[in-house]
């Protein structure tokens, strides 16, 4: 990368087959950044984080290291709370990051939100002075997920070469391709109507459900806050009325809100706002921070938002 031709935002995918290729693709990238005086952050799953930390030795202290399975458990919060948070903390410098949001343990339910996140990085970082490298394990991940990486990353790296992706597409279009109907809730899901006058009842309803389901008190409070924000959005922007359905599924609680609104901004809830500019529109940003997964299907005819919370 010679200075004259460096684009503002660079977003390569790193295709790796094993630890050796992983370290060869990440460690020199980190060290180059440090040598250039760039702030460097690494958010990858724990075992890979350990590999990088060990390989960096004393240099590890100069890098912000975060376990992506924790900070990026919900892919919807990675852009605001990990990537843009780091870039915004260094406003006058080019920043360098590694973000690995897709690992072998990601479920089929989580994956569409991960792919949307990868696509929307390109929209959120337009004209930002940053490089974000996204490693993909070609041995362990679903081949379809690797194909999607070609659509969400303008540049591809593998052990042998660096090349432009022939399949890279407009980020909003790619994200929209994952905006698909969600499977129906189970027949025994508990439901309650949402409107301006039922917010307290809606909070009480989810708290009682979550208490019975054995959610820890702290998580119950998070859930009440998240559901309240989503229900408030229904009242304010979603046609005024809607429905909440709650059920337990595979060790977590799912809360689904349906209303007649349309979430037309694909970056809604993904752009951090400084505290001194807080306004009423921070609900979805908070929901992404509180929940382990947020799935959205939105059309001009109505919106379904599904928030998952683990025990």
């Amino acid at each position: 990368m010679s200075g004259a031709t460096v684009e503002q935002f660079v977003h390569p995918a790193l295709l790796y087959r094993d630890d050796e290729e992983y370290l060869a693709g990440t460690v020199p990238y980190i060290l180059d950044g440090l040598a250039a005086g760039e702030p460097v952050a690494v958010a990858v799953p724990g075992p890979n984080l350990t590999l990088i930390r060990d390989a960096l030795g004393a240099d590890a202290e100069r890098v912000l290291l975060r376990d992506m399975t924790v900070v990026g458990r919900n892919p919807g919060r990675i852009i605001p709370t990990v990537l843009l948070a780091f870039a915004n903390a260094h406003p006058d410098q080019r920043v360098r990051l590694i973000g690995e949001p897709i690992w072998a343990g990601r479920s089929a339910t989580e994956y569409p939100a991960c792919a949307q996140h990868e696509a929307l990085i390109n929209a959120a970082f337009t004209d930002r002075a940053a490089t974000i490298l996204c490693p993909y394990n070609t041995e362990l991940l679903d081949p379809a997920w690797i194909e999607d990486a070609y659509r969400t990353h303008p540049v591809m790296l593998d052990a042998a070469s660096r090349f432009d992706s022939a399949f890279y597409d407009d980020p909003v279009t790619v994200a929209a391709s994952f905006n698909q109907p969600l499977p129906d809730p189970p027949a025994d899901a508990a439901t309650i109507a949402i409107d301006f006058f039922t917010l307290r009842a809606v909070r009480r309803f989810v708290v009682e459900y979550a208490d019975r389901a054995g959610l820890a008190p702290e998580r119950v409070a998070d859930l009440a806050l998240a559901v309240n924000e989503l229900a408030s959005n229904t009242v304010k922007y979603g046609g005024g009325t809607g429905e909440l359905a709650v059920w337990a599924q595979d060790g977590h609680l799912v809360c689904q809100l349906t209303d007649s609104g349309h979430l037309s901004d694909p970056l809604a809830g993904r752009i951090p706002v400084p505290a001194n500019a807080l306004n009423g529109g921070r609900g979805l940003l908070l929901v992404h921070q509180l929940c382990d997964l947020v799935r959205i299907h939105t059309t001009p005819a109505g919106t379904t938002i599904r928030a998952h919370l683990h025990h």
Partner: protein
Amino acid sequence: MAGAAMLDHLQLGDHICAFVNGTDDGLDLMARAVTAGLDAGEKVLVFTEPLPPAAALAGLEARGVAVAPAQRAGQVRALPSHEAYQPDGRFEPARMLDSLTGYIEQAAADGYPGLRLVGDMPWALGEPAVVDRLVAYEAQVNRLFMEGCAVGICLYDLRAFGRGLLQEVACAHPTTLTANAEPEAVPLLRIRRTSDPYGLRLIGEADLSNEAALAAALDAVLDQRPDPAAPIVIDVEGLRFADANTAALLVRLALRAPGGVHVSGCHATVARAMDRLGVTQLSQLRLTGLVA
């Protein structure tokens, strides 16, 4: 009438919006509110419409309220709503606030612990321009009630007001009693002004349904602060729930208060939400938790 049990447990400082379904239901609610006021030894002032005062008092009597002796003792008084709110045919919110202040001071001067005001609100529909001012007035009047010398119960007839307007009106009250509400004994939110330290005490839950009331109370506490350099203390020890917008309102207050804002007694859940919204990074806003 479901949920009306709350009317038995109101305290000086409460400001309640109550929806009623027609005149009879309105009288039922009014009877309950007046009884509670008389039992508390407060001065009770009733603004009534469309029933003239004599008919309203007779309706209360018929519902078992001992109106006659209270009336003889000067403890209860009824006025036509339009006369109270629109003395010359016009509704002037500032004048109305002055007039309410006068009633509250008179009740104190007469030795009552406080004033209980029960108002029928259909007068507000008479004049289109009034409707616009009504919501602003209902928000502003919180600054009187939060002083803790009066209770306000505003009766809105579901048959007379449209849903959109009722929602705006409700939002300007800390608590709304709806026709189909769960039987709640405790108001959703109580707002009280404190003097030492100067600020507000919030008790209950702050959400979209009462955000205009809270915003108006925060504006008032800023406007009326005696010492611009001293921090405004918002005591939230009794606040069990606060949404993202509540955090935004506190930030807006902190940015406008030269002495900053101290949010004290924060529950862990409220503190975590504030932290996630970045509020704790602001130098103008100090947040402290519950004292263990």
